[in-house]
Structure formats: structure tokens, C-alpha cells
């Protein structure tokens, strides 16, 4: 069941939550809506579910325009950040809720609930109440509940946002595996770019109600459409008009025409990677990512002068990246210029 959104607009009073948003979600895919708070990603998800109505625009599920259909009829499974567990019902009654409404027989409900509880790895907890479960268990129950009625589409709104870091990582993997098994078209919302890149096949980056770019994780990382996307999906240094990733900054001991002079301010060891903070002659602060091996070879020390060379800088202002020796970059390029930078020392 592919999903399309065409020209969606939604305002809450003066606040424009969605601004001409159009996305395509292929059937069976696992897509992430990624963006900071207020970017409109949750609003978009809820509009697909029917929990918000669009001011203008359409939502199509499997080719059918469902924009005027109420949530009840859209057959979407929805998972909430804070679980939305029916506190007054047992786990069994929670998971079986959708089935009970569809008037399934007791035996059938029992069979399906058991099947799902096994799928989400909560066997034997059917008679507990949500308050007796941990956060991670509650979310898995919520997922089982949503899947019970075999929805066409599964929508998750920051599903791991309320959980501890470790639980979050575990559930991430688990969700990916589950998706591979079930193959239901799934969209989930997150502000955590690592989570999005880890789990989803397709990412849609949103900002201030607009779609900035959509594509695979690799696409977004290597060919960001603009500064926002580039800095959102990874760390970035700004050198004048250019943007360079920390691991794309090469540090060398000897100067040459392609290097710029900088002073090492601070060297921080973070696990296996080293973060070297430097400041350029004009005061710009930059940080480079090195491995331990590289650090040792360079024998860098704080307070020392070093020389940097950015490899793969990107520029988004429509002209070629500065200092590129006549490299041909298309005018008004939005896929970023990619060139070696030679320094004007």
C-alpha cells in the first residue's frame, strides 16, 4: 500500500505546520520522517492517519483518496510516543481491542492475540496491566495492538522517544527486523538522525513545514540538497561559504598551497575517534575527526599550529565552491559542488 501526499497545507492559527508538502512512500517500504521540533513531521504523520485534517491537499493510500475519510475507516495502525495504552484494560484486552470492535469471536481473538504477543516477545504477560510493564514492553504492546487488525499502513510517532537510550537501540533493531518480516508499509517520525539512518530505507527530511529532501541515507549524507539537510544528518564545519564534514578535514604537518593554517585548541578522545578542535586565523572554529592512529602519526598537541586541507567541501549558494580552480559546477546547483579546495593563504 503506497502512500502519497499531495500539496498538503495545514495551519494552527498563525502557525503554518505544513507548507505544500508532497511525499511518495512506496509500498512495503520503511520510511522515516526526520526533522527538528516544529518541522511538521508529526503533523504530516497524523494527517496521513486522519488525526489531523489538512487545510488543502490530498492523502492517498494505495491510490485511493482518503482525505475525507475519518481515522476509523482508514485502517492505519498508529503507535504513539507515550504508548497510549488503555490503562484500565489488561494487555490482552489492549491488543484485542480492535478485534473486539470488529466483532471477532472470542476464540479467534485469543488466537490472534497470542500470536501477536509472541511476535513482539511479550508472551505470558496477557493478564498484566500496562502499569505493570516497563516502557519498552508497553511500546511493544502498543505495536502488537496496532498490528492486530492487520492495517494497510503502520505509522509510528517518535515511538522510542520516551525510552532509555539502550532500550531505544534495541527496539530500533527489533523494528527493522519486524518490518522485514511483515512488510507492511511503515512510516515513522523521529528527530534522531542516527535512528532514522539506522532503521529506514528512505528518509524524508523536513524543516519548518517543508520537505527539504528525500532519499536514502547515503543520498542525504553524501549529496545533501542544502545546508539544513547537510547539518541535520551529520556534523558539519563551515568554512566561509563551504561546508565540510569533520572526517573530511585532513590535517597535515607541512603547509602547502592547498592548506590553511590553524591552531589546535583542544584534543578530545571520544572512544575510538578523536576530536580535534582548531581555530583558524580569522577566528573560525573548526573540528576535525581523526582516528587514534592518525593522531599518533601527526603527534599533535594542544596549542600547536597545524595545517588543514578540506576534502569534499560543499557549497549551496549556487556558485562553485570557493577557490576551486575553474571546476565546472552547474549554475544554481542544489546538489552541492564537490571540489578540492585550495587555500588562499
Amino acid at each position, binding site marked *: 500500500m503506497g502512500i502519497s501526499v499531495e500539496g498538503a497545507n495545514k495551519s494552527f492559527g498563525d502557525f503554518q505546520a505544513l507548507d505544500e508538502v508532497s511525499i511518495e512512500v512506496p509500498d512495503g517500504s520503511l520510511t522515516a520522517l526526520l526533522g527538528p521540533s516544529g518541522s511538521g513531521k508529526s503533523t504530516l504523520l497524523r494527517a496521513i492517519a486522519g488525526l489531523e485534517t489538512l487545510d488543502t491537499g490530498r492523502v492517498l493510500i494505495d491510490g485511493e483518496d482518503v482525505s475525507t475519510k475519518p481515522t476509523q475507516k482508514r485502517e492505519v*495502525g*498508529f503507535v504513539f510516543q507515550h504508548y497510549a495504552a488503555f*490503562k484500565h484494560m489488561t494487555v490482552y484486552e489492549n491488543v484485542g*481491542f*480492535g478485534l473486539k*470492535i470488529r466483532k471477532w469471536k472470542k476464540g479467534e481473538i485469543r488466537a490472534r492475540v497470542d500470536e501477536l504477543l509472541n511476535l513482539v516477545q511479550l508472551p505470558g504477560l496477557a493478564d498484566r*496491566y500496562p502499569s505493570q510493564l516497563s516502557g519498552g514492553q508497553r511500546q511493544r504492546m502498543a505495536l502488537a495492538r*496496532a498490528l492486530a*487488525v492487520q492495517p494497510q499502513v503502520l505509522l509510528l510517532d517518535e515511538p522510542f522517544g*520516551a525510552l532509555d537510550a539502550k532500550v531505544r537501540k534495541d527496539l530500533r533493531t527489533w523494528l527493522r527486523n519486524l518490518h522485514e518480516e511483515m512488510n507492511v508499509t511503515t512510516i515513522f517520525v523521529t528527530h534522531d538522525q542516527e535512528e532514522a539512518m539506522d532503521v529506514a530505507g528512505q528518509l524524508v527530511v523536513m524543516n519548518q513545514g517543508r520537505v527539504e529532501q528525500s532519499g536514502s541515507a547515503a543520498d542525504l549524507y553524501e549529496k545533501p540538497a542544502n545546508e539544513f539537510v547537510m547539518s541535520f544528518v551529520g556534523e558539519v564545519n563551515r568554512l566561509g561559504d563551504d561546508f565540510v564534514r569533520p572526517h573530511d578535514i585532513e590535517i597535515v604537518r607541512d603547509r602547502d598551497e592547498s592548506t590553511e593554517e590553524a591552531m589546535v585548541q583542544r584534543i578530545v578522545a571520544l572512544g575510538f575517534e578523536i576530536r580535534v578542535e582548531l581555530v583558524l586565523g580569522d577566528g573560525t572554529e573548526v573540528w576535525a575527526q581523526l582516528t587514534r592512529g592518525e593522531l599518533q602519526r601527526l603527534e599533535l598537541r594542544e596549542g600547536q599550529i597545524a595545517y588543514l586541507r578540506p576534502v569534499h567541501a560543499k557549497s549551496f549558494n549556487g556558485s562553485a565552491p570557493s577557490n576551486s580552480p575553474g571546476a565546472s559546477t552547474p549554475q544554481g546547483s542544489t546538489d552541492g559542488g564537490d571540489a578540492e579546495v585550495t587555500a588562499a593563504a
Partner: protein
Amino acid sequence: MEAHAANSPVAPPRARHFRLPGVGAGLGRGYVVLWLSIIVLLPLAAMLDKSLSEGVGQFWDQVTSPAAIQSLELILVCSLIVVAINAVFGTIVAWLLVRDNFPGKSIVNAIIDLPFALPTIVASLILIQLWGKNSPVGIDFALTRLAIVVALCFVTLPFVVRAVQPLLIEMDRDMEEAAASLGAGGATIFRRIIFPNLLPGLAAGVALAFARALGEYGSVLLFAGGKSDTTVASILIGQKIEQGNEVGAAAISIVLLLMALVCLFVITLIQRWGTRHERSQVNLAANPVITGATPQKGDERE
């Protein structure tokens, strides 16, 4: 609120740190107990004493006299009817105040407390003006049993509304949306999701309303009066005092008091039951029926 209390670091009571300035906990306790004794407990004890002063037999006779039984039955039945009516209408009003938006909503919200702020005798007066002999709409049911019911509805409405309202405010809307995504329509959602979570508050509000209705005096006095078929227990007690039958008055008072105490006890049970599954934070100390405050949407997430 309870969530916070449960999560706040528990400082074990350290004997030497007195939260009562200048005095110790012991002295404070003594003051509190003394005050309560003089103001509340001793008078009640004196009443109990009086009711039995002529022996258990006389107590029993007074309480089982036809007039007494009729008055107690009358107020019981009327109170039950009234709380049933207000359970429904009180919930509707609370719903309107929380989930709906209409012009004048804040005025309506404030006016709910009117029966609470208005002296009961004034309530009686204005009710008899509207529904009595000189009624501008020509409807007259003063001095009837209907008048008792209407007066009691008037004074007990705020109890139910203010008990249900905070639960509605704090209710996790996600649950309703989840139910909708699973295919449940509006009525089903109310029946299976909203109502069960309102129940503890509603029950507590009803129990408080009931206790209040049992003893209501001022508002029925002028409006329903003391005719033979509209003499509720409280009015009968008043009559007996005037007649000098103190033992009789005291005896019936004790019975009435016991009935109301049962209500209070029931409320405590409801409170325990309500928090059994952590489904709703029914904290009587914060019960707006008594406190009148409407708490804001609190963060119950852990």
C-alpha cells in the same frame, strides 16, 4: 500530583527537623487535636450522649417512630434520585466545559460553583420564587416532593461536575486517538475508553453529593417545607428541637450521621480502587469538590 509525590526523594522524618516553626511536631499535634476536639468531636460526643441518655430503648423508639422512618426514607430516596440525575447531567456539563467551546464558557464554569457560594436559605428563597405560587412561568411545585429533588439537585450539582472535570482534563487523549485508529467510533470510544477512566471521579463526586444531600436543610426548608409528606430527616430534627424533644432529635441525628459516614467511608474505598491500576489520580485531598480547584494537565509520564 501523586506521581510527583511518589517520585520525590523521600526524606525520612528526622525528629530534630521540625517543619512546624517554633514548636515541635508534638505541640502542633496537640494543638490540632485539641482544636478538633473542642470544635468538632466534643459536640458530637455530647449529642451521642444525649441520644442515649434515656436508654437504648428510647433511642430505638425515637428512631423507629413512623415520622422518623418516613423522614429518613424520604431523604434517602430523594438523595438517590438526585445523585442519579446529577451523575448524568454533571458529567455532561463537565464534558462541555472541558471538550467543547462555546461563548460564555468561562461564565458557565464559574457559575457552577454558585450553589456552593450561595447560602442555602437564599437558594430556597429563589427556588420558591421561580417554581412556587408567584412563579412567573406559572409552574408551581413548591411544598412537594419534586421540590425536594430540585433543591437537592441545585446544591449537589457542583460536587459531581468538579469531580469529573479534572479527570477529563487530565485524560490521556492519545488513548482516544489510539482507539479511533483501531476503528472505534465516538460512542464506543466514550463507552470503552473515556467512561471507565472517569468512573472513580464520578463515583467519588456522587458519594460526596449523596452525603451532602442527606443532610441538606436550608434549601429545602422554604421551598419544600415541613408538610407531612415533605418532611425530610433534617427538617424533622429541626422540628424536634423546637418542640424540646432533644433526645429524639439527637437520636435521629445519630442515624443520619451514620448514613453519611458510610458515604465518606465509601469514598475512601473508591479512592483506593481508583488508583488500583493507576488508571486515574483520584486524590481526595485534591478533590476539587472540596477544594474547588481544577488541576491542569499534569505530566503523569514516568
